[in-house]
């Protein structure tokens, strides 16, 4: 039945591959062609005619042509029993029959044809984009090759792409990335656990790595997660260990603010030097607050101060080292979450007295104005939030019925709408969330009074490559 169906190839993505982990690929081709036994990583997404993702094992034949229709076949191979899970498959083209370099060096347009079970030819063919050319071994196999090429390597000021912001010697991470399609959409995957169980922690990402800071019970802990290697590493702990603090990033530095029991403390972590510095105290001590970094400044929002739930919103400028009072939240709350899209801060959820809030408010630092937005479908507090590709993901939390939540809801600021997404595998509150490489990571938290070490990844359909500039 499947064989006869006209299958729809929704998404395809070529990524770098030469059979081993790469450090990067040159963006600007400048070196002469080098013969290299590279393969091309190819990922796709298959559904049936009703749009239902396939779960199957298929024989797939791939062929590269020099035209969208007809044209000459330049290369082909058949791979047997390719697993397709939830519609997603991933293969290395050239692993059966090596792709000659001439396929890419002697022509501009190249198109990939996919045939299922030797009979179902998917149409139309997929164009192999310029990016894929850059990723192939033809012009610059890896950043290492680019560095050692006989033509002198990557010129100063030119850029390479890396799987993380950790730049090789002679390069600097530009704090920017490029985005490409990722077949992992709305899929939760369990990743390596943190080194410690922790709840009421904070997390932030810098250069494609995530830092999980403080929390209960190990208030001094600081661990780095590398999504590429799926490993956690202990890093330098901060001076004032605490929990229920907030964490935000600006200009490659992480700021950890407030918390229990030292609620005015603001500390800055530099992941490059693995060092902490104490900043000027926040004017209003708070725990259970939210924080966000925008336009080089940090905003500390809401939380629980001496008197209870707070509306306080304070801005910290690390350059002038000044805290400034800004427009107060529309309503008091603590245990809320914040994320940034397009220079605006979105604060969602939290608790006020016995109300577990669905409220979502937008703060525009330019106009210093709060605007009420569409309610989140699920009222909850001590949830976590992170943004990617212009959308915000609100994850987990605890609600008025005493339930630890797996709930994942996506907010689109452009349409001002919330969409329910697949549940996170592990129910929890007091967790942290951060984005890295275009994917969302839910980290730690608490279930039934026990801290957790779980790390779970949500694919959002986008993957990021980090731009590293030659010094």
């Amino acid at each position, binding site marked *: 039945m499947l064989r006869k169906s006209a299958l729809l190839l929704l998404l395809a993505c070529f990524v770098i591959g030469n059979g081993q982990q790469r450090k990067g690929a040159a963006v600007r081709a400048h070196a002469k062609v080098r013969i290299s036994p590279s393969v091309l990583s190819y990922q796709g997404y298959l559904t049936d005619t009703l749009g239902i993702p396939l779960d199957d094992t298929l024989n797939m034949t791939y062929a590269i042509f020099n035209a969208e229709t007809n044209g000459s076949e330049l290369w082909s191979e058949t791979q047997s029993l390719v697993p397709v899970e939830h519609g997603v498959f991933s293969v290395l083209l050239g692993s059966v029959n090596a792709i000659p370099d001439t396929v890419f060096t002697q022509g501009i347009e190249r198109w990939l044809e996919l045939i299922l079970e030797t009979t179902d030819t998917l149409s139309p063919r997929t164009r192999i984009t310029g990016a894929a050319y850059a990723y192939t071994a033809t012009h610059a196999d890896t950043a290492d090759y680019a560095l050692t090429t006989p033509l002198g390597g990557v010129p100063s000021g030119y850029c390479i792409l890396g799987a993380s912001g950790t730049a090789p010697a002679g390069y600097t991470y530009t*704090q920017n990335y490029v985005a490409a399609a990722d077949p992992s959409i709305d899929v939760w995957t369990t990743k390596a656990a943190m080194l410690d169980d922790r709840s009421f922690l904070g997390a932030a990402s810098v250069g494609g790595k995530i830092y999980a800071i403080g929390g209960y019970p190990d208030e001094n802990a600081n661990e780095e997660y590398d999504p590429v290697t799926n490993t956690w590493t202990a890093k330098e702990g901060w001076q004032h260990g605490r929990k229920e603090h907030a964490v935000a990033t*600006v*200009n490659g*530095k992480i700021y950890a603010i407030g918390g229990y*029991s030292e609620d005015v403390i603001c500390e*800055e972590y530099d992941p490059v030097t693995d060092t902490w*510095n104490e*900043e*000027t105290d926040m*004017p*209003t001590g708070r725990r259970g607050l939210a924080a966000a970094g*925008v*336009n*080089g*400044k940090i905003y500390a929002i809401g939380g629980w101060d*001496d*008197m*209870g739930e707070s509306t*306080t919103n304070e801005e910290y*400028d*690390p*350059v*002038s*080292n*000044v805290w*400034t*009072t*800004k*427009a*107060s939240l529309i309503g008091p709350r603590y245990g809320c979450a914040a994320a940034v899209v*397009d*220079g605006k801060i979105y604060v969602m959820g939290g608790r006020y007295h016995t109300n577990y809030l669905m409220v979502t408010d*937008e703060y*525009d630092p*330019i*106009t*210093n*104005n709060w*605007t009420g937005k569409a309610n989140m479908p699920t009222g909850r507090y001590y949830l976590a939030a992170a943004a990617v590709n212009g959308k915000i993901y609100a994850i987990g939390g605890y609600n008025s019925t005493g339930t630890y939540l797996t709930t994942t809801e996506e907010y689109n600021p452009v349409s001002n709408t919330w969409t329910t997404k697949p549940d996170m595998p592990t129910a929890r509150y007091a967790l942290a969330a951060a984005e890295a490489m275009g994917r969302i990571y839910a980290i730690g938290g608490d279930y039934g009074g026990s801290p957790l070490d779980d790390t779970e990844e949500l694919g959002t359909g986008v993957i990021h490559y980090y731009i590293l500039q030659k010094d």
Partner: protein
Amino acid sequence: MKSKSLLFVLLLAVVICQSTSDIVSVDGRKITQQDVSYRLAIDKAYGNDQSGTTEVVLQLIMQELREVIADKEQIFITDSMIEQEALRIDMETKAPGILAKVKAVFTDHHEYLKHYVRPVLVEKSLQEEFFFDTLHQKEPLRIINEAFTRSAGKPSNPDSTLNVFEPDNEQLKYYENSAEKGIGEDKYSYFFLIEKNGKKTVYLVPKMDYTEWLHTEALKVPVHVYDEELRKKLLTRTRNSEFWQKILSKERT
């Protein structure tokens, strides 16, 4: 005939007064194209690539509004105060790399002082004035004073409208140090302590809201955006803000 000539002269004077590089007037204080360029460059140094002219003009209007309000409040910012603030920033900055980029925007040190340091100092001074000036805080100060007087010798709730809480040990140290045996204050509140049944209790009154006050004062200041297209863009950008819609409304300009 004479009146027509006079009108012409007046019109000419208006045209001459408004330089072609002027974009906005805030109570007669001009925001120029150069100001916009500087602010754009400062934003970029801060890592903010999203700011365009619209965002920058809004920041500059607010900056000038604060200047006008500071004037009305008789907050005088002298050159030496600005120099001192610049020195403080040099010594206290937590982001020396970005500060260096900000400084590099200006070829002239005085321009750096005028366009970067002065606005920082004005906002700081204005907030200091508002939160710690007894005139601005007349109402909460009245409430706390009356409550404190009523509470003398009567360890009961002196006023049901006050915020009341029992501090933990850390908080108690702070409130005891700040209030001693009278009324204390911090940036956002007035407070005093009463010992009740062997437990210290803090009674607290929040101070007035700074943003609310600033906006009220700002709405008394005339703002004129010279270019109608720009005004429309600013209105669109601030469509969620009642305050900005009023500031930019044609009736006020």
